[in-house]
């Protein structure tokens, strides 16, 4: 039996607008097992990114309960969240957000020393990750010397180099051509099978969705259809 990665009950989220609470998520229940490969889909403004933020522990729910690996983190302190994010969560954003002054290798290995890896070990892991994503030959370049697709792959490399329990990606294939997207999805699948890394995507990309084992369709802050296994 697979272990639980996330368990959410009655998850709600609202933001404040001139003293008025504007609901974004309206009572979500969610159960995800470790090693999952799932997509959250739906029109813009339905709360996909907000849900990813809650799952990635970079925001807190207004109501409800969120368990990560069986631990209730609904009211966890920021330092506890920082620690869990460092050790267990890899985030990939549509806008890359790489450090332009660091090389591809330095961006990729950024978090590894914080996880206790030596400089040699960090470099080795980062080079392996870059190889997996077809970026080995570009290790010494700066992000601004790369194409948009290559930068996106560096952002992916940075997130997966630390071998997190879960990778959360917001539109990871939005800026990629189909061949590069295919290669990246391949890398995700390989990591999923080799390291039992879970992948949760927020996406509009039908091709990426076609690889998902579970699909959650969202509308107006609720799951329209809950993710059944495929």
């Amino acid at each position, binding site marked *: 039996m697979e272990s639980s990665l996330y368990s959410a009950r009655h998850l709600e989220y609202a933001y404040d607008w001139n003293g008025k609470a504007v609901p974004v998520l309206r009572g979500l229940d969610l159960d995800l097992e470790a090693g999952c490969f799932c997509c959250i889909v739906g029109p813009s403004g339905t709360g996909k990114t*907000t849900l990813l*933020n809650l799952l*990635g522990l*970079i*925001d807190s729910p207004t109501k409800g309960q969120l368990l990560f690996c069986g631990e209730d983190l609904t009211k966890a302190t*920021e*330092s506890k969240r*920082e*620690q869990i*994010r*460092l*050790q267990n*969560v*890899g*985030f990939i*954003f549509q*806008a*890359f*957000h*790489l*450090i*332009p*002054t*660091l090389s591809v290798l330095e961006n990729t290995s*950024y*978090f590894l*020393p*914080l996880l206790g890896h030596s400089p040699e070990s960090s470099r080795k892991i980062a080079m392996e990750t870059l190889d997996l994503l077809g970026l080995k030959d570009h290790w010494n370049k700066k992000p601004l010397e790369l194409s948009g697709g290559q930068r996106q792959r560096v*952002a992916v490399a*940075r*997130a997966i180099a*630390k071998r997190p329990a879960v990778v959360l990606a917001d539109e990871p294939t939005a800026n990629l051509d189909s061949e590069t997207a295919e290669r990246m999805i391949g890398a995700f699948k390989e990591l999923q099978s080799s390291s039992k890394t879970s992948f949760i995507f927020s996406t509009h990309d039908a091709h990426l969705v076609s690889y998902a084992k579970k699909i959650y369709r969202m509308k107006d802050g609720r799951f329209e259809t809950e993710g059944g296994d495929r």
Partner: protein
Amino acid sequence: MRAIFLLAWKNLFRNVRRTSASLITVAFGSAGLLIYQGFNSGLMNQYRENTVRGYYGYGQVFPKDYFGSVYEKPWEHWIVNPTEMEAKIKSVPQVKEVFPRIGFYAFVVRGGLTLGGKGEGIVPERENSFFTQKNIVDGRDLEGPDEIILGKGLADALGVKADDTVTVLTQTVHGQLNGADMKVAGIFHMGIKSIDDQFFRVSLESAQQLLDTNKIEMFSLSTTGVEDWPKVRDGIVKAAPDLEPISFDVLDKVYYQNSVDFLNAQFNVIRTIILFIVALGIFNTIAVGLLERAGEVGALRANGETRSRLFRVLLLENAFLGFLGGILGIVIAVILDYTIMMKGIPMPPAPGITRSYLIYLQIQPEHYVQALLLPMLAAVVASILPVRKLLSRSIPDLLRSV
């Protein structure tokens, strides 16, 4: 820690134009501090040289409790065995030369004009090589008995010039009137009105004859330097307990010490203003630069980077900026010092002074340290607020920034 240093250093080159603008702001602040401090130091040195080599020496040695006291017959308290005392003072290793003196009040008469003045009996052959700041403006320095040199104000009031003759009238220590005709060897212009208007100098021998005494009032001292005064003082007190050494800054509190205190206070105000301008000048650049990095900071935090580590990186980045700006500022200041300021800065007469000066920058090692560290501190302080503001934003808010 190495990673933090490396990241902070590399971040400096993120936007070369912006970093250059900040560097120039810091550099000019640092150069301004260094030049002003060097100028201040040069000015103080000029003041000190005037005081030490114009009149007082590095200090003077009086009979114990004599300095600051008022006596009806001061000569009763003068030093009776000057040769013996001089030998004791000279036994102190830091004492290079001893100048015995007598001070006395007298009338200086020229034709029908009689003016009161303060005379001083000195040993010209000993003093002339040390007291080089008398600024003889007419004639020459005192060389022997029956000669007199006068302060410019006194000479002007009497209407005398070099080679004229004046009569000095005074009272002997026994209460009798005594006088002597003396040739005006020269006229000095120290630039201190109170001295130039009243003072004249004759040889110690002439002064002792006029006063009819073998005593001396005190010794002026040439020593190995200002910084050695504590050793000089302790050595003299030990060798001659009946004597009391007093340093030049105490003797000349009104002119020298007050000027130094005033200049230091003025420098502190200007230094604060310069640092404030530096901090304000780079504050906006830092704030804009950080704003552009909000998304990047959000992504790092989302992946587990801590606020405290980012705080250190960003502050260190600005410390580097301040450090580099400080070095650039020092280079600018040194170049200016060795080029356009090489020939000195002409200054009008300072308060209480009646002649102008040329001031040379005198940059001391501690000035370089200050010019490096203070702008660095200003840069770090200027960055604290925008860095704190950036890091206090929530991660989703940071990520929404483009």
